[in-house]
């Protein structure tokens, strides 16, 4: 499979498929049933010029969207933080507790599903991923 541009339409379509097809993740996230948005802040000095917004419903992954919508959880971070998480340099929950991945939404609920969160990130890491700008060399798969 060719690499897919991180958080592009095709990437989200593939992420949706793999999320639905991961029974271990589905089991760990049972009861979560909520909406999430991921906002990626541009880093023009590193070749990432566009602000990206994607959203989904987890754990069902019944749909995804590429625009701003009202959601329960919004995660906000620069592109480089997402790259660090996707490449395993930074643990997602540590990114939250460190403050580098900002969370708007009920923290207790997110912290209750740490195992599910980690399994979901693992699922996304199975997608061959192409990063932009200076981060291109960290593309994988």
């Amino acid at each position, binding site marked *: 499979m060719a690499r897919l541009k991180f958080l592009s339409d095709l990437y989200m379509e593939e992420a949706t498929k793999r999320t639905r097809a991961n029974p271990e993740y589905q089991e760990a996230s049972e009861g979560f049933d909520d909406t999430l948005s991921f906002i990626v802040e541009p880093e023009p000095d590193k070749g990432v010029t566009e602000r990206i917004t994607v959203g989904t419903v987890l754990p069902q992954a019944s749909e995804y969207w590429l625009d701003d919508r009202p959601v329960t959880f919004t995660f906000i971070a620069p592109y480089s933080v997402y790259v660090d998480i996707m490449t395993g340099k930074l*643990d997602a929950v*540590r990114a*939250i*507790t*460190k*403050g580098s991945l*900002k*969370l*708007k939404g*009920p*923290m*207790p*609920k997110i*912290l*209750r*599903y*740490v*195992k599910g969160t980690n399994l979901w990130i693992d699922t996304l890491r199975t997608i061959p991923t192409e990063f932009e700008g200076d981060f291109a060399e960290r593309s994988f798969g």
Partner: protein
Amino acid sequence: MARMTGGEVVVRCLLKEGVKYVFGVPGAQLLPLTDAICKNRDRGIDFIHNRHEQASAHMADAWARVTGQPGVCTGTVGPGATDLVPGVAAAYVESVPMIVLTAQTQSWRSYPSHGSTQECDQLALFSGITKWNASVNSWDRIGELVRQAFRMALSGRPGPVHLDLPADILFQTGELEEDAFPEPYQYRAIEGPAGNPALVEKAVELLLSARDPLIHAGGGVLRSGAWNELRDLAEHLGTPVTPTVGARGVLPDDHPLVFKPSGYGAIGAQCEADVVLAIGTRFGELDGWGNPPFWGEKGTQRFIQVDCAPEMIGVNAPLEIGIAGDARTVLRQIMDLVKKTAPARKAGRLATECRATEQAWRSEFEDLGRSDTEPIHPLRLVKEARDFFPRDSMICVDGGNIAVWATYLMDVYEPRTFLWAGDMGHLGAGLPYALAARLACPEKQVFIIHGDGSFLFMNQELETARRHGLQVIDIIANDQAYGMIKQGQLAACGGRVIGVDFYDTRCDKMAESMGCYGERIEKPGQIRPALQRAVDSGLPAVLDVLVDKEAALNPPDFATIVDLWLQGCELG
């Protein structure tokens, strides 16, 4: 009218304050003080001599933490005084009241120095780690200055104070009447100050109007003895309570409203609460400075801070209301108003939701605590120890990574039963803390969870334990390394390590050499029977437990702690 040395005057003042023990190492210049203690043993005071003055300071610190009364320690001029410093510093940063007595060379040849051996500018030495210090420059002023020392140690934000006692003043004799030694209530406050009533009223209005209130309890609640008041208020309002690391045990860890420091239940509650009543805490580093991501976003969360030290109000977190006052007194004021205006409530949404989060967080650790793997997983050791000892046992923690591991499953159930020099992170405090805890609570079992690195900082105090018949059970998670530093080096320095590994030291044999019980443990199933044998020995005991070196390096929250410590720092 009685004739007495300066040392005897000091001891008579200590007796009025109810001091039972002076912890120290004797010295020539201290002779009148130690001799006066010797002569007054029948009045209820005694001298506990250690093998190093640092241990004396730690014991005085622990005595104060357990009893609520200032601990007293002493060292002679020069090296005796300098050796006290680490223990005094650890107490200072955690607001523990202590009286530090040092001998000084004769008054006519100190300040400035005339070249006496051992002489040292001890006023300067202690000025940065005590609330107040003074040289006792006249025999006639000994009583006044000892009373001032207690007044200062216990007023406002408690802390250590220091008196420098020139040898000639200690040796000098004079006559004093019995009324030269007043009762404490005649010269210092014995109740903490109340809060401003108007501000207390505003605080109650804010609390009662909150959607999701939270009580954040710090070490000030323990110092002030306010745990019953805290429980009353929390239970009346159904409000979650998040104790700080320094306030562990203020309410039982298994109380339905309590969430362990840094646990996900606590972080969730801290982020979600709209009104926070913070009592006896300054929002230090281990409290995330009162800022996101450990707390709610600015503008969405309102803080009420109650602190006995006006200078600590609003230092870190921005406040809605700041109240200077004693924790217990102010909690009573709040409770009086709350009971008049609001009926008791059930535990709210926040407590229920965060309980589920806490349980999810803890379940992983519970699994590790049952692990049968060899070498022994650190959490198996922690869980075995906690399950073995009674709920009211005195728990001491001393180390780096093992202290982090202990956080997860070392539950604390009673106030003033958990001793850890957490703010200073001082290695070596555990054994002296345990000895003082045993002295203060001879009816309770006392145990220490140690790293091998921290044990070997102060292990000579096993002899002190043996000599005084103080049974403490010292449980060492031996990974033959300064594990916390080693893991930091591995993560930050491309796998290179330096200065962190040890030779395999038989800590159990060291214990035996000092007349204590010792045993080495290598398998999980050996832990519990060994704990029983240690207790049955009737001796101070060391269980030298070889733990999984790799697992020990990686407590789950290690990275978060490093993030806090090294915020803004990155190795180039």
